[in-house]
């Protein structure tokens, strides 16, 4: 039966990506002599339509029953070639890819052709033993979960809800709005951040297809694409949401204060509070760390004054389970705390502030009522704005945070508008790459801002001259003048890096997605699948994927909504047919596998005294296959026979050591 294998091998040049370092002619000739191979062809781009047609025609005309494609990573084009062979009537699981680009031609300086031969040999040997599999289709739940209620999450939720699909929008904070609602003006148009965001916040909250869950966190995710089960913890607000009218009398009467997180600690908030006046929902929460009732059992002022009797000190956390077909992760970013850069003096010297603190200072609803002021209450006469604090820095974050150059220019404009102060921009490179950015850069330059190109060495209050006395001195090398400069100023604004959320690792585990070296969530492909992740049905948008500005975030969030809609609108989805199966003849009923399966897919049949594996629950990891002492479990598409053949092929040019005895 195995003698009738008819394997076709297709070797891709990938332009010069493969052909540049692998001798295609030699590889083609080599492949001709592999067992079962009846045809070998090479082509400039096998993934192109004419390339795919070569395969399809050979399947039809030469009666191929196995196909090997030697090209890029299977993670890139395996789906493409599976579709192609299926269109020619061959089962898509009778295809094997040899990765001779990412793991060969691109990474080795010599030995490429020999390695490519070994990889093609291995693929052909494995293909020889491949078996057809039926693809499985499962129905898709038409609801979507969006995690994170910043601009990314709001935008994605609105798009999906507008298409009349149910959306659960989960936000950890008491209000939606995210980072964007903390900002004052937005570059380069200088429109007011809350003016453009609050209408969206209101419409998402009142949308008939959106279920808003604030002060809530996703704690568990199970299931698979199209059929996720998600457990959500609803943290107690100690205020009954169904009764509270949002009148705010409780906040007014609460006598206990603490630093406001929303105002970056520059202002105060009460123990019962909404983070900001336009909070959505406009329902306060009680912070049990500050509330005296929770500490000492006294006070209860809020309860006393609440007319609708909405205060409920007995509330406890609740758990809700929901079912969704797709998940959009829009969890945003953290701002790097620059205090580890000791020489910049943050938290050590007065009037050294971060960008977000400065945003709150500029905001009309902020702690200073929109005034740019020093700690003393006076207006500054000079301000330095320092770019790349932690970004583009080998010691902290290698990447560029992308938004700092432009918001630093915006700050310069705002300082000029609000005060008489001189402004210094201390930058490494000015990156004004977006629409309207260069024009904005020019405009701010024309407003009389001083630009100093260099990386700041130190910010100090140690004066060397009379002029420097009582000032903060910014010391750096002006790389355009080629000399050291000391700039005395009243206030320094640091532009710290945007970094991955502190709990991004936890979220990645929960969602079963990967993170890049920079800590942000990893997209499936940097160019062609920038929204998808390793886990089908889970999408990532906004700054959770990497630093980006508001327009890019909104565009990406809309793309995330389109991806989710494409998935749920189809109504059904094809899932991987790589699962495990039991050979009942061989199973001894030892049950070793049952405890190993992370998905409870294996059960013991008391009647047959053997185990059974559920095709729906099994995800095909193969841990049971490797553990079965009787060799009774078959890991489909990765059987022992197939992998042994692959090992033999990959080592075809090495002589077994045993023969040396």
């Amino acid at each position, binding site marked *: 039966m195995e003698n009738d294998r008819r394997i076709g091998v297709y070797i891709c040049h990938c332009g010069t990506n493969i052909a540049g370092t692998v001798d295609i002619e030699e590889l083609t000739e080599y492949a001709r002599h592999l067992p079962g191979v009846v045809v070998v062809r090479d082509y400039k781009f096998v993934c192109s339509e004419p390339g795919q047609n070569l395969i399809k025609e050979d399947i039809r005309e030469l009666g191929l029953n196995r196909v090997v494609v030697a090209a890029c990573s299977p993670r890139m084009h395996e789906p493409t070639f599976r579709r192609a062979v299926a269109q020619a009537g061959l089962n898509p699981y009778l295809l094997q890819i040899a990765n001779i680009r990412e793991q060969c031609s691109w*990474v080795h300086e010599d030995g490429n052709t020999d*390695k490519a031969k070994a990889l093609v040999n291995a693929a052909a040997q494995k293909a020889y033993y491949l078996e057809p599999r039926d693809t499985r289709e499962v129905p898709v739940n038409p609801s979507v979960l969006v995690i994170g209620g910043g601009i990314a999450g709001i935008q994605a939720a609105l798009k999906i809800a507008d298409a009349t699909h149910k959306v659960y929008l989960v936000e950890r904070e008491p209000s939606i709005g995210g980072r964007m609602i903390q900002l004052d003006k937005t570059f380069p148009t200088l429109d007011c951040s809350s003016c453009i965001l609050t209408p969206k916040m209101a419409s998402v909250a009142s949308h008939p297809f959106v279920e808003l869950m604030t002060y809530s966190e996703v704690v568990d995710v199970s299931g698979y694409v199209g059929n996720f089960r998600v457990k959500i913890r609803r943290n107690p607000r100690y205020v009954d949401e169904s009764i509270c009218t949002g009148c705010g009398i409780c906040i007014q009467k609460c006598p206990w204060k603490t630093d406001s997180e929303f105002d970056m600690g520059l202002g105060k908030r009460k123990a019962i509070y909404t983070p900001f006046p336009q909070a959505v929902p406009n329902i306060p929460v009680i912070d049990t760390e500050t509330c005296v009732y929770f500490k000492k059992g006294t006070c209860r002022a809020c309860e006393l004054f609440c007319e609708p009797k909405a205060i409920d000190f007995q509330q406890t956390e609740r758990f809700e389970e929901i079912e969704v077909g797709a998940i959009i992760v829009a969890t945003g970013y953290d701002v790097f705390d620059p205090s580890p850069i000791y020489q910049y003096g943050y938290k050590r010297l007065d009037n050294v502030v971060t960008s977000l603190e400065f945003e709150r200072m500029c905001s009309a609803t902020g702690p200073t009522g929109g005034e740019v002021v020093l700690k003393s209450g006076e207006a500054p006469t000079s301000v330095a704005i320092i770019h790349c604090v932690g970004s583009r820095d080998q010691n902290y974050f290698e990447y560029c945070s992308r938004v700092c150059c432009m918001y630093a220019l915006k700050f310069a404009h705002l300082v000029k508008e609000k005060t008489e102060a001189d402004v210094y921009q201390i930058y490494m490179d000015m990156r004004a790459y977006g629409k309207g950015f260069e024009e904005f850069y020019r405009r701010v330059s024309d407003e009389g801002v001083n630009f100093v190109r260099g990386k700041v060495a130190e910010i100090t209050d140690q004066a060397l001259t009379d002029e420097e006395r009582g000032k903060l001195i910014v010391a750096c090398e002006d790389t355009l003048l080629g000399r050291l400069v000391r700039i005395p100023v009243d206030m320094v604004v640091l532009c710290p890096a945007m970094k991955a959320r502190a709990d991004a690792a936890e979220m990645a585990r929960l969602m079963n997605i990967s993170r890049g070296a920079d800590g942000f969530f990893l997209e499936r492909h940097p160019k062609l699948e920038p929204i998808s992740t390793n886990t089908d049905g889970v999408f990532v948008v906004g700054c959770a994927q990497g630093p980006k500005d508001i327009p890019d975030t909104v565009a990406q969030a809309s793309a995330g909504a389109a991806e989710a809609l494409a998935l749920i609108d189809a109504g059904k989805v094809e899932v991987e047919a790589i699962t495990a199966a039991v050979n009942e003849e061989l199973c001894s009923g030892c049950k070793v596998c049952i405890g190993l399966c992370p998905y409870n897919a294996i059960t013991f049949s008391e009647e047959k005294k053997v185990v059974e594996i559920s095709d729906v629950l099994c995800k095909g990891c193969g841990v049971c296959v490797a553990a079965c002492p009787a060799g009774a479990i078959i890991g489909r598409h990765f059987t022992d026979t197939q992998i042994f053949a692959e090992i033999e092929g990959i080592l075809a040019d090495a002589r077994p050591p045993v023969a040396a005895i």
Partner: protein
Amino acid sequence: MRSPNGEPRIVGFLCNWCAYQGADLAGTSRMHYPANVRVVRVMCTGRIDPTFVLKAFAEGADGVLVAGCHAGDCHYKEGNYKTMRRVALLRKMLDQMGIEPERFRLEWVSAGEGAKWAKVVKEMTAELQALGPLAWWENVREA
């Protein structure tokens, strides 16, 4: 003639979700490392039956490199923990068979760690070059 150019052969068993993607990332980032490693892709390191490793040595590998997701990051929740346990036993067995410990390596490489993959392959290749071809029959200890 161990191999045409006398170079050590390393068989890599890589999980689909972390290490294989990390190796792909090394490719898209054009990080150079020796061609000595040849990769067999499996869905999870938990699928790696110790006999795969023995088979590779029997077929002429001078080293075997298993790479998967970092602890806690397994795409299948806990497959890599099972690998860790199996590998502890396998190491003992390899030792008894006269296969030096440097010839078998277990590494955790995430999808974002292309540089780590390249580094691991470079290190292991250099170690195996120093060690010379596999000759377990010279190392088998008397019982």
